[in-house]
């Protein structure tokens, strides 16, 4: 899997790059409009992370060029502007997703995987790991081919951990993904703790071959057993 990061902020580019490399992707970078334009039309990428404000031009222009070439569907816009206009324009131009800075690495990871999954679909939209399988279309959680009933939020939590296998999922990232913006003032520590406790019990009872470990009291990590 080949990914291009178009981002002019060097530090952010580095951080994204090292995160994606942990997932064993081939990662290339471009830090201005011209470099990005060149790379986009010479090579093929499975996923493109595109910053809108770039030196020498706008990311939206790049997107327009990509759309004309029929290559815009695997673009994730990463922008500091949470502006509805930009979002709509970006999505109209065929971008797959729109991520507002600052974001969590786990979130970016999940979005990238979603793009890769959608574009390399081989007839099914499932996440598999050892003896479990998560069917994203039918909302089914199977352990040893046995369905384990989950409610919507439990399903979301499983999905988030599974796409972030072996990666740090902070409590905040998890809360934002599952409960949306509503978390912003939660006494979320205890709340998330209690939710994870339930999930752990479910996983254990179902005999799934993974567990959710606590990481330094800031988040969790899904590891295979």
């Amino acid at each position: 899997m080949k990914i291009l990061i178009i981002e002019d902020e060097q530090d952010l580019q580095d951080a994204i790059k090292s995160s994606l490399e942990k997932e064993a992707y081939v990662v290339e970078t471009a830090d201005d409009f011209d470099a990005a334009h060149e790379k986009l039309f010479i090579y093929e990428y499975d996923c493109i992370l595109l910053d809108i404000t770039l030196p020498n031009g706008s990311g939206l222009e790049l997107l327009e060029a990509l759309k004309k070439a029929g290559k815009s569907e695997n673009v994730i816009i990463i922008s500091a502007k949470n502006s509805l206009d930009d979002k709509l324009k970006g999505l109209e131009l065929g971008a797959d997703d729109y991520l507002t800075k600052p974001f969590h690495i786990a979130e970016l990871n999940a979005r990238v995987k979603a793009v890769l999954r959608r574009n390399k679909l081989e007839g099914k939209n499932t996440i598999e790991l050892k003896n479990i399988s998560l069917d994203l279309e039918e909302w089914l959680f199977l352990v040893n081919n046995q369905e384990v009933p989950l409610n919507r939020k439990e399903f979301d939590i499983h999905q988030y951990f599974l796409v972030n296998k072996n990666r740090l999922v902070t409590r905040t990232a998890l809360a934002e993904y599952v409960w949306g913006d509503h978390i912003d003032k939660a006494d979320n520590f205890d709340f998330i703790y209690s939710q994870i406790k339930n999930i752990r019990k479910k996983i254990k009872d179902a005999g799934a071959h993974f567990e959710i470990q606590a990481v330094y009291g800031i988040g969790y990590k899904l590891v295979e057993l």
Partner: protein
Amino acid sequence: MKLLNRSLLYLSIPIFLLISIWSVVFYFKMLDEIYDSIDDGLDNYKLLIIQKSKRDSTVLHKSEFDESNYAIRKVGKSVALNVKDVYSDTLMYMLNEEEMEPVRMLTTAFRHQDSYYKLKVISSMVEEDDQIDNLTRMAIWLYVILILGILIINNFVLQKLWKPFYELLENLKRFRIDKDKSIPDIPTNIKEFREFKSATNTLIEHSVRTYNRQKQFTENAAHEMQTPLAVITNKLELLLEEGRLSDADAETIAQVMQTTDRLVQYNKALLLLSKIENRQYFDNQSLVLNELVKQTVNELEDFADFKSIKIKVKENVPLELKMDAQLANILVSNLIKNAIFHNLENGRVNIHIESDSLTISNTSKNGPLDESKIYERYYRTKKTDKQKSTGLGLPIVKAICQLYHFKINYGYSEAQHFFTVTFE
């Protein structure tokens, strides 16, 4: 007091003084003229009598005035020689008026065939008191008419003259710096008004520019912080993920991350607030608030369950609104979130939807809130933990209400907080 009437007030005093002085001067001048004229007449009359006495000596024996207006008495030479022509005022009984009236009298002496005579000639005089009365009355009338005249002129003529000023004033009153860019132009040829207008326009332009710059500043600053915040968040996450830190270091990093999360929340809230205030939301669409409320309650149910809080929604009618969906969402969820988070264990949240209002109430262990402060940015009650609240939730609600001209009211009764949003 209106300028026009104030000027009248200022005018009324000098006008009064002027008319008074003028009346006095006029009176004496007129009296002088009257005396002059009467005295001339008396002088002429004197000559006529003296002439007549030369032809007709009976005249010399007319020692009383009676029906005529002169009297002659024989006097000694020495007396006669001491008499000079004297005009004097005196009183005489007038039959027609049946009272003593002032008369002008000329006293003189003449010689006739070696005899000396003293002659008194009279003429009826103006009645000074009547004259003064009349004049005073007329002066007062003049004063009243003048003032009324000025009042009328002020109100019809000057009003018209001052019209550009009042229009400008009206426009200034209506001017809202957050809505208008300039005030409508008013045609006028009057130099002072033109200068006033141009000074006003300059001031407005300047204020609007400053206001916009200030508005933009918050938004730009918040925007500019997004990328550095992303760098901090992501680098810290990667650092923790490496798993090579000692527990103590990891603990510190975790604390820094939590602080960064707070910074991110502040920044998001600030950005949202400045976006609302900069009116960047105008994707208004029809939506049913009932649906939105139920959806939000559904999303927040886990939190409520966790604190064993019961949420009850009571709706009588569908409440339809035209507003931005995202803002409607924020409005509803901020209020419900507050009701859940500032609640008791086993507390209650009641949501009541009427045809034009939404009321959200919750049980509370603290007393009533200070309504004058709850909408202030970064205001938190002492008991609210700073780490858990941005202090921007209610200011955002307030800003949304202001944007759409909704009314928001706070109340407290029976140990419950009530927030009511009234839609127009």
